[in-house]
């Protein structure tokens, strides 16, 4: 622990992912709304507090019909936060923003909340309590080769360990800590999912950019005395701290 340097505060960016339900109405809309109202009747609380993205890829709507569709959903207390697959001309001022991409994940099923169904559910014999969950270890990713320029390792789930170099122009993005057993010449972004306890360790510090929980520092701002040495970097009181490990 020879050298400890501090840095100034800077603007912070965080990546965070939220779960949204994607609602994809189908033609004819009249009939679709009948089905939808039926669902709402059985599970009135399903859409409460849920972010909803409207997928209109199959519909090919103009601006007026799309606005009408969103208004009809609004009347049913469904708040549309984004629209996927709409023509650019159908969007604009006053309309939700266009969205694309997204990863498919599991969503909860609507629960039947009608009095009869609730009663039937209550009448069922209680099943055995769920088995005790074994505390799982935090996931980690081990890369046992050099990460070359232009390669990007993205692992939001946890720690990344690289056995080899991280070349200039390469990038490691981890939700947890990053360990590099070799020269670190590229970029490392640790704790990207909002984890200020994440740290960066490297065998030889020659990084272009280092970031923990959105606070970053470029090579220019790093203490020259640490360059080329084994080092660790951590975050304390929103300040990146550097220390040599030799």
């Amino acid at each position: 622990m020879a050298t400890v340097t501090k840095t100034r505060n800077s603007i912070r960016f965080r990546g965070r992912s939220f779960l949204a339900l994607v609602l994809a109405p189908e033609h004819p809309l009249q009939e679709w709304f009948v089905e939808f109202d039926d669902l709402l009747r059985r599970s009135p609380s399903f859409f409460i507090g849920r972010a909803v993205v409207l997928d209109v890829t199959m519909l090919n709507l103009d601006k007026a019909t799309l606005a009408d569709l969103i208004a009809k959903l609004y009347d049913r207390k469904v708040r549309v936060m984004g629209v996927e697959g709409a023509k650019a001309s159908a969007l604009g001022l006053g309309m939700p923003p266009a969205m694309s991409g997204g990863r498919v994940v599991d969503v909860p099923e609507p629960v039947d909340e009608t009095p009869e169904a609730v009663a039937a559910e209550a009448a069922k014999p209680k099943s055995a309590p769920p088995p005790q969950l074994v505390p799982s270890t935090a996931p980690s990713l081990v890369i046992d080769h050099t990460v070359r320029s232009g390669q990007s390792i993205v692992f939001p789930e946890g720690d990344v360990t690289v056995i080899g170099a991280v070349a200039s122009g390469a990038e490691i993005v981890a939700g947890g800590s990053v360990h590099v057993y070799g020269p670190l010449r590229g970029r490392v972004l640790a704790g990207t999912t909002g984890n200020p306890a994440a740290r960066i360790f490297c065998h030889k510090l020659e990084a272009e950019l280092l970031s923990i929980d959105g606070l970053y520092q470029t090579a220019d701002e790093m203490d020259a005395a640490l360059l080329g040495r084994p080092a660790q970097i951590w975050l304390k009181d929103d300040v990146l701290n550097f220390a040599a490990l030799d």
Partner: protein
Amino acid sequence: MAKVLVVTSGKGGVGKTTSTAALGAALALSGQTVCVVDFDVGLRNLDLVMGAERRVVFDLINVVQGDAKLSQALIRDKRCEHLSLLAASQTRDKDALSSEGVARVIEELREKFDWIICDSPAGIERGATLAMRHADMAVVVTNPEVSSVRDSDRIIGLLDSKTMRAERGERMDKFLLLTRYDPARAERGEMLKVDDVLEILSIPLLGIVPESQAVLSASNLGSPVTIANPDSAPARAYLDAALRLMGIDVPITVPTDKRSLFGALFGRRVA
């Protein structure tokens, strides 16, 4: 068993085409049958360096698209009977290369030659990725300066992920060919040293080709330097590199041009 070798670098102007011609000729001189293939569609140069520009009738694109047979497009070298050239098209662009067509041409070449040397275009786009796609081994040509080294690193990453071998989970042999090296300038700190480059790229060294007037003279003559001036320093470096490609262990040296006493005393060029 035919070997497909790609000569690549990422960065332009580092000596891919020169090295392709010189290594191809060196392998051919040792009795192996060699075909050098120009993948730089639209900016073809290998035919010039090989001195065959006035004999090109059909090219790689014609064969890839099935307009000509491979045998019609191959140009036999006049100086070395084991050496053939498959030229690129100057009038087309890289989109004319189809992935299936290239695969078929490479398979056909494998039946005819011991070595198929693919001269990759600069960059990491279609031409470069198709040139490396079917390779068994790669020669990464690098100049001792930072931008070339970083681009080479990027190319090594692509060789390890985008080639057929990598996708089958097999090993892809990669060798570093350091070109335009000037030991005196490296010593003065004006150029990266061999060890610096090796430390960053961490792949085996195939050879060090010194910066030399002989390379330019040979290009202008339209002859690979290993044929035009086999006693010159770069030619000796390429001949040794070719031996290493064939699996013969030759110690790595930086060949130098012989100088007269006067030259040795006063011959240092102004950098």
